[in-house]
């Protein structure tokens, strides 16, 4: 294809009425050097058969910025060259014939400061339905410091969350109340109390617990706060329960959040499906009210899971760090839900580091500076249990909430015993790691030893010792160790 020269038509001819190829309209500029202030998006573009890849990538740049299907003279009333997104690099995707990585730069002035909705309306707007493409995926974004600084960021952040909870040096432990549907408020609070008293730091509403006939939200909030306060008094430790305030309207959500605040809860929760604007509103509310804000990523797999089409979760994680949530579900690797280890590592780094260097093996395509934006606590949830503690600590590190739902509530001797088993397993593993032991390999031994003084842990290890979820990942990074040639 050998297209390293700009083929943009310039001057009067550029604005002749009619249809012109995107790559000739100024959306393909192979010599463009992105400015420090540009937003950069990396798309995986799969053109329809017979469509020139460069033209397809230029069309993505066009349709996600200023272009429409035909030339319009009104472009000439604007600084059109500045506002055109510029595709400046196209690489074939390694081992994936017919797909291309398109690097596209957007001028910062295309975006309203501090608005994820505005950013996404451009970047993942109409362009995803564009007919000449078979499939399109937003793989990664580079957000310039100038833009990052227009966002609030996590309302609380990892450090302040730990200070408020007085919990340092180990992952936090949580559990989602099960069964997720059908419990009355009174029964629900029982599960919360048992789990917190047994040794967990948090319990959690599930994503689809809002206000249903079997349990209206006020009932849940009142009984849960009784459980939290009782457990705090029983242990001398700060406890919390993520009260899900997801509701039909912002007004309803504010009402529920205010009630949680009035009852003394230290954390509330929302679902990703409420939308970017609602998430940012709740993040601002959380900052104003000293509340930790938990985000459940309900719905994300509809667009993050397939490699060919949609939005990578690493991009969602970046948007959510900007938007200002404090917790986000980011995968477990070893549990029941999708999660390639390297890709998941990339998500965790995006949540927790102040600077992410380009790291193709982890699916991170750009250097990203977070400019001191608060850190976002990843949450590992779904099919994990005490017997995996060494692997979890090794893969996910210390600043993470480990959520054992079934792995707490399913314990043969009850919820408190399940919670205690998890806490003892965790503390034993941290102790061993800090002592310099090879805890990853000696993990099972360390757990068995800890179980000698903790019957609940011994029982947990017996019940779940052989449970693993080893399936092929659908979303692993595509990379070759050496940079590929531009086409």
């Amino acid at each position, binding site marked *: 294809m050998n297209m390293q020269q700009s083929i943009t038509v310039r001057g009067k001819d550029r604005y002749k009425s009619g249809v012109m190829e995107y790559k000739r309209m100024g959306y393909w500029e192979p010599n463009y050097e992105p400015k420090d202030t540009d937003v950069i998006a990396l798309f995986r573009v799969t053109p329809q058969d017979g469509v020139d890849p460069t033209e397809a990538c230029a069309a993505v740049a066009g349709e996600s910025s200023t272009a429409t299907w035909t030339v319009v003279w009104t472009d000439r009333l604007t600084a059109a060259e500045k506002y055109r997104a510029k595709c400046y690099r196209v690489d074939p995707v390694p081992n994936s014939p017919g797909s291309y990585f398109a690097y596209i730069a957007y001028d910062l002035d295309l975006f309203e400061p501090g608005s994820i909705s505005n950013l996404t309306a451009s970047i993942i707007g109409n362009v995803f339905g564009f007919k000449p493409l078979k499939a399109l995926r937003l793989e990664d974004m580079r957000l310039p410091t100038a833009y990052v600084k227009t966002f609030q960021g996590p309302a609380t952040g990892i450090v302040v969350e730990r200070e408020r909870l007085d919990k340092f*040096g180990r992952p936090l432990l949580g559990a989602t109340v099960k069964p997720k549907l059908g419990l009355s408020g009174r029964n629900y609070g029982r599960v919360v109390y048992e789990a917190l008293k047994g040794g967990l730091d948090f319990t959690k509403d599930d994503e689809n617990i809002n206000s249903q006939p079997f349990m209206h939200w006020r009932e849940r909030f*009142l009984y849960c706060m009784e459980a939290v306060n009782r457990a705090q008094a*029983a242990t001398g430790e700060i406890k919390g329960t993520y009260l899900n305030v997801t509701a039909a309207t912002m007004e309803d959500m504010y009402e529920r959040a205010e009630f949680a605040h009035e009852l003394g809860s230290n954390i509330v929760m929302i679902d990703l499906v409420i939308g970017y604007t609602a998430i940012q509103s709740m993040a601002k509310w959380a900052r104003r009210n000293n509340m930790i804000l938990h985000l459940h990523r309900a719905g994300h797999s509809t667009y993050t899971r397939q490699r060919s089409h949609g939005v990578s979760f690493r991009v969602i994680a970046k948007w959510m760090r900007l938007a200002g949530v404090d917790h986000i579900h980011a995968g477990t690797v070893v549990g029941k839900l999708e999660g390639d280890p390297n890709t998941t590592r990339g998500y965790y780094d995006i949540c927790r580091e102040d600077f992410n260097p380009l790291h193709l093996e982890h699916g991170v395509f750009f250097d990203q500076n977070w400019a001191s934006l608060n850190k976002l606590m990843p949450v590992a949830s779904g099919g994990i249990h005490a017997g995996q503690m060494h692997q979890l600590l090794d893969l996910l590190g210390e600043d993470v909430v480990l959520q054992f739902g079934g792995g707490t509530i399913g314990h043969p001797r009850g919820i408190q015993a399940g919670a205690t088993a998890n*806490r003892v397993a965790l503390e034993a593993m*941290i102790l061993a790691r800090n002592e310099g032991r090879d805890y990853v390999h000696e993990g099972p031994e360390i757990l068995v030893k800890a179980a000698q003084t903790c019957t609940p842990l011994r029982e947990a290890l017996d019940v779940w010792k052989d449970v693993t979820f080893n399936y092929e990942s659908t979303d692993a990074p595509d990379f070759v160790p050496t940079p590929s040639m531009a086409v």
Partner: protein
Amino acid sequence: MRVTQGCFSFLPDLTDEQIAAQVQYCLDKGWAVNIEFTDDPHPRNTYWDMWGLPMFDLRDAAGIMKELADCRRVYGDRYIRVSGFDSSPGWESVRISFIVNRPREEPGFRLDRSEAAGRNLRYATHSYAAGRPEGERYADQ
């Protein structure tokens, strides 16, 4: 009851050898180790009394274990915790904290409720020990 604050409260009480290993871990990370004590273990009691300043310049676990022994000699009937403080940018807070000494008897906490409108309850947590003046709280032990 057993107050379960800190990193290792669910394990059997740490031996001095185990404590020294954790202290060494902090020192190897470049954190300042701090010793604090209290006789009011209320979960919101943030400011335990400091046994001297955080040991910013001590690089040897043995020195810190000696300080801990001295602290225990004076305040052995109270809670004592060891913490590691990390001053690096973006953290500038505690990295680990664990209890290394407890009163023989831990009386725990009373939860008071006062009823308000709409079935709301206001909760207050009282440390039984804090019913007596500071310094006399575990005097019977």
